[in-house]
């Protein structure tokens, strides 16, 4: 028996053939792998397409992402890195001095800040350094979806004040870092790994 026409096979799957055609095609399919493959292809494609409820993202979602990618390229270029450097902007999620209570006495001994740069958290502790007008800044980078410290070891931590590099440190085997003798001010903190840069902008390294 000759192979059925493509249209007949498609009609067969869609139930558009006559009873006689149906019986004839069914019999043919039992012995013809080529036509059986066509029937299998059309059935799977039709069923997958009809079950497809996907939607295009709004243009702003795509544009925002493309912009983040351009940002990552620029970050890599600035650092002399080939490819992209995923730049994750951190968000301040907790500050022990905020909201400032009405009875606040002004200056305090220490301040804790928590930044979220998913999938990382960055904890900061700002404290007096034991010398006038100088602070100690200790911190830890934590990977939220990694039980080990693999992703937070030997990251470069840069303190930047008014666009100028003020100090550099490196994270320890558990993601900790520390700066001593820091002049109070609002700093940008860049935490750099091989493929990633966490940016903590306008961090209040002050105790009031």
């Amino acid at each position, binding site marked *: 028996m000759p192979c059925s026409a493509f249209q007949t096979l*498609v009609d067969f799957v869609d139930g558009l053939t006559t009873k006689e055609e149906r019986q004839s095609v069914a019999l043919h399919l039992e012995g013809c792998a080529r036509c059986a493959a066509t029937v299998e292809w059309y059935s799977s494609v039709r069923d997958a397409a009809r079950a497809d409820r*996907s939607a295009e993202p*709004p243009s702003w979602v795509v544009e925002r992402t493309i912009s983040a*990618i351009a940002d990552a390229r620029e970050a890599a270029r600035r650092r002399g890195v080939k*490819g992209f450097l995923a730049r*994750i902007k951190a968000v301040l999620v907790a500050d022990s001095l905020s909201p400032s209570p009405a009875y606040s006495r002004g200056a305090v001994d220490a301040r804790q800040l928590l930044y979220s740069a998913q999938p990382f958290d960055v904890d900061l502790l700002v404290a007096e350094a034991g010398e006038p007008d100088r602070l100690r800044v200790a911190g830890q980078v934590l990977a939220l979806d990694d039980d080990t410290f693999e992703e937070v070891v030997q990251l470069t931590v840069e303190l930047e004040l008014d666009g100028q590099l003020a100090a550099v440190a490196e994270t320890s085997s558990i993601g900790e870092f520390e700066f001593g003798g820091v002049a109070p001010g609002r700093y940008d903190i860049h935490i750099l790994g091989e493929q990633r840069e966490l940016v903590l902008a306008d961090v209040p390294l002050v105790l009031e």
Partner: protein
Amino acid sequence: MTIRSRQELEELEDAALVRRCVEGDEAALAALVHRYQRLVYSIPFRYGMRPEVAADVFQAVWLRMIEKLPTIKDPQKIASWLITTTVRECWRVSERARRELPILDESHDDDGPTLHEVADPHPIAEEEQMLLELQHRVRSAVSLLPERCRQLVELLFYSEEPASYADVAKKLGMPVDSVGPTRARCFEKLRRYMGDPK
């Protein structure tokens, strides 16, 4: 190879496009985002997430992609990598909401589930992953069809209710008798564009 236009980038196979991305080609990465934007954006909705959360998941997945680009072993399987990464990102977002934002419990309303209600503790089933990849391949191939074929296939495949031949004839301004043969020719083209052997 020098790539001159967006169209040329769009025509590259996944592996070639990913290679250009690894080299730091921003236009190639934008083309990769456009190619898979629908697939990635749709997954959070399968877990019942809201549009604003889906938008954050979308961005996080592509930033993750940038980080992992040089280590992706089989660029031809980028669709599979994106599906797995997006599902993981959905779990991560809902797990984080569960851990840190119990207040979301109280904000529950009729607009949809809270973030932590949608977490699925199980990895995506292989069958579901294959279905998502197939749906992506079909969509991509349909988009390459000539205009009339594309309209016909969309009416038959993507309408709320599959259109009848009479509906298709009316909407496309063609005789009812020619719908069957035209449809068959369009599906043959679709099969070729999907790279399926005859």
